[in-house]
């Protein structure tokens, strides 16, 4: 790696990190797992003058539980989420998603907070975070605040974080034992990012009818979104293959879908339906 020169900071508290960011303004960047920032610095597409390495802030690496929610520190890496017994048991969707990111090396370094803050439209987490209706805890010069997932992802590589604001933790609801979940994705063959990623949580009542459903879709448009029409179509219906297929139709309707050398917009749209269906089927226990 041959980046431009930069000044390096290793704060030990969130407050210190935020005040460093504030002091150096737009020329400062937070460094978490380094899987987006460092490649960009390597290619000199990003040339921050100040790099604030969050790796030494212990608070950010903890997973705790409060009030029926997990509070997952922003620096928790994908491998931890994939393998944590707590997360696998009680918020399986997050583990299912983390397990499909990149490769083992990437998962050992890349972090939840780093990925989410970067707001890459092809990142895996946003689909799950929208479906789970998580809250982001952020700290900035004005103190701490919470942002809902729905408000957090604003546009292509744009989050609701204000200048000098740092994503500190993600608050993720514990899923009840009757809630099934799945994350299904079509990988871009080179990068492993999602051409389409679909996260679903599904609960059925005793009669087999859909009691709760949430579908998050990533990779298709400039930002991740909820497949609300499909959710509406499923709610209260029997969770049959036929109903699910019918509901997961034109998932990307109204979304600005761009094509590239890896997938045309037509293909992306079609795959949004396929993977939404697959995620719901799996979450409903009707397929693997």
């Amino acid at each position, binding site marked *: 790696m*041959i*980046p*431009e*020169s930069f000044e390096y900071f290793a704060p030990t508290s969130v407050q210190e990190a935020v005040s460093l960011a504030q002091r150096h303004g737009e020329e400062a960047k937070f460094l978490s797992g380094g899987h987006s920032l460092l*490649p960009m610095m390597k*290619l*000199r597409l990003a040339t921050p003058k100040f790099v604030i390495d969050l790796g030494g802030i212990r608070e950010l690496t903890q997973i705790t539980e409060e009030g029926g929610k997990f509070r997952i520190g922003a620096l928790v890496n994908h491998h931890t989420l994939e393998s944590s017994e707590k997360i696998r048991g009680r918020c399986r969707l997050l583990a299912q998603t983390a397990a499909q990111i990149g*490769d083992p090396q990437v998962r050992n370094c890349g972090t939840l907070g780093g990925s989410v803050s970067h707001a890459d439209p092809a990142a895996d987490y946003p689909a799950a975070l929208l479906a789970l209706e998580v809250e982001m805890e952020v700290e900035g010069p004005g103190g701490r605040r919470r942002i809902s997932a729905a408000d957090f992802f604003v546009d292509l590589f744009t989050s609701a974080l204000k200048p000098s604001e740092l994503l500190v933790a993600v608050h993720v609801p514990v899923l009840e034992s009757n809630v099934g979940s799945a994350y299904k994705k*079509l990988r*871009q*063959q*080179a*990068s492993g990012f999602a051409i389409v990623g679909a996260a679903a949580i599904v609960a059925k009542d005793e009669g087999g009818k859909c009691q709760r459903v949430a579908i998050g879709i990533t990779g298709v448009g400039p930002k991740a979104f909820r497949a609300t029409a499909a959710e509406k179509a499923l709610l209260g219906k029997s969770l049959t293959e036929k109903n699910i297929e019918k509901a997961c139709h034109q998932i990307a309707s109204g979304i600005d879908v761009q094509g590239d*050398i*890896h*997938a*045309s917009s037509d*293909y992306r749209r*079609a*795959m949004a339906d*396929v993977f939404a269906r*697959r995620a719901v089927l799996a979450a409903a226990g009707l397929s693997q």
Partner: protein
Amino acid sequence: MAQQYIGQSVKRTEDPRLITGLGHYVDDMKLHDMHYVAFVRSIHGHARIRSVDISAALQMPGVVRIFTGEDCRSIGSIPCAGALEGLKVPAHPVLALEKVRYVGEPIVAVVATSLYLARDAAEAVTVDYQSLPAVVDLERAASADSPRIHEEFSDNIAYTWALTGGDLDQAFKEADKVIKQRMVHQRLIPVAMEPRAVIARFLPGEHELTLWSSTQIPHLMRTQVAIMLGLAENHVRVITPEVGGGFGSKLNVYGEEAALGFISMQLHKPVKWAETRRENFAATIHGRGQIGDLEVAIKKDGRVTGIRYKVWADLGAYHQLLTPAIPTLTGLMLTGSYRIPAARMDVTGVFTNKMATDAYRGAGRPEATYVIERVMDLVAQELSMDPVDVRRVNFPAKKDFPFATATGLTYDSGNYDAPLKKALKLAEYKKWRREQQKARKKGRYIGIGLSTYVEICAMGPSPAMPAGGWESATVRIEPTGKVTVLTGASPHGQGQETSFAQIAADMLGVTIEDIRVLHGDTGVVQYGIGTFGSRATAVGGTAVYRAIEKLLQKGTLLAAHLLQAPKKEIQFEGGKFSIKGDASKSISLQEMALASYTAKNLPVNFEPGLSSTYYFEPKNFTFPFGTHICVVELDGDTGEIKILKYVAVDDCGKVINPLLVDGQIHGGIAQGLGQALMEEAVYDESGQLITGTLMDYAIPRANDLPWFELDRTVTPSPVNPLGVKGVGEAGTIGSTPALVNAVVDALQPFGVKHIDMPLRPEKIWKLLQKEAQ
């Protein structure tokens, strides 16, 4: 010779140092007071250079000197070994002058005291470009009204070449049917794990330039760099430490190698440049890049009687070492493993505003094998025959070898039905054909693909090669009895430190630990050709074999003298010379070595020391062959291809080390499947390389690939005494058509006859959108 090692899966002696990170690659080395070079490269596919402003960069901290094209005018042109008639060879300066012709072409070399400062200063160099229309599309580039890439030529056609054999007119006149098809061999990027790297150190006192370079051809590089820099060849030394893969991309002499030498000569400092991955993508040779129109004459029993193939070859902007020669190899192998009496190939080599294409694993042969193996399936489809039967109808029989082809080659030995038979059994071919029928009824799409390839290895007889096709070996018994083997081959992952030691250990009756195989240092090893074209064992290994034979003859003379017996009564066995029928009198190799060096009691006129050198010139190429069978299932929703089974039965002649052979086959299949499934270098219409990083250029990972079931048959080559053929490229050559044939087979219900690679899911998905027939 007692075979203790040959034929055994001896673990690679290279591996412990490599696995534990103790090996040394060029970029691991640091010389005292070393400076670093960063190149400013073209961001345009085609542009005139109005001016280059280095003034700001010169002011940057740590900058020592900046070299432009003007400063390097005295360096000779980057060499091309092509000797085709009428070949247009454009000037190819190490740093661009006046014009740039591909994205990544070096323009300026910045030298600084650290790598980072060099890179920073390179960013501060301003090049004022006047953008010109880029010539990207191959057929348009060949047209008369295309913008010209090299103004000194009348068009972008670098050469035309044809190869013809047999009576084509008759074949097409008498054909029952004629099949026509266009096939595209997409451009590929070699992506060796270790990018290129060079250190140059010029010592003014000794007037000696040492180049450490990650190359497959240290000696050829020494010769060429000496010529480019106007140095005496014996004042240039090329050292090739560990090389992290080449696949042909380091079978070349690049401008950076000469530029680094030149800079070191100017500054009297050692200088280093290690390619970044982006540079590796843009400015190290690419592979393949052919479009071909095919016409095939067939008889209704499945026999192929004639084949015409008209190819446009995408050469890129300049010739690298073997650029124009690669497509001609396609012509030689066009008839594949079949008795096809008439064949013609026409090549039009075309300049485009892209990186040069050159030898990439298989180098022209994968293109030929792909074409002919697709042809066999097209014939099967046309005549509703089983593709296995079509192949059998066209195979030459075992008794027909040596077999002369319409393209002028003589296949050394072969028994093509043997691996086919074995592979069919291993793959449970008939069972899968039944499964396929059942699956189709349920709307599932399974396909079975074969490839019964033959390829050309052991490059090669010198008359057929641009710069010598022999290989050298020196075998030296040291005074302590240890054995040093110096090979002119330049292994870079193939494992010949192990396999050559196996040959030597068996022949000399010593243990493998007694042997050291040295290579890749022109100051240590006698002149050699290098490692490419699956040649190292068949040619270089044979040189080792012959050198030891020669050495033992000398040893016999000395033994006869020391044991006081006639020469004809001396035998050599188990590392000892002894008198036949008298076990009590013997002398070990070690004792002999000592006696030969202390030289107190030698026969009259006996040359002291115990070493010999042999330059082996093969009389022919070798022709390994085999059958690959691939079973796939298509995902009807997404178009993704799942490989259900992969069987490879290869025949590479005799096997020195089965483990190494299997490793070559594994890697080869992976690389061949990479081309079939996902790899493609994409330039946009302005000549930008869109797939310029590993984020956009897909190469296969372990989890993309199935378990490979391997087996082999053994048909020894008569070309060399070891009976070996070569295996470095077989996997790549055999696998690509097997997979494509399987996918096309799966798509038969959709009326699909051919799909161009790479078979990305979307391409398959689109075909699946049509109604099944």
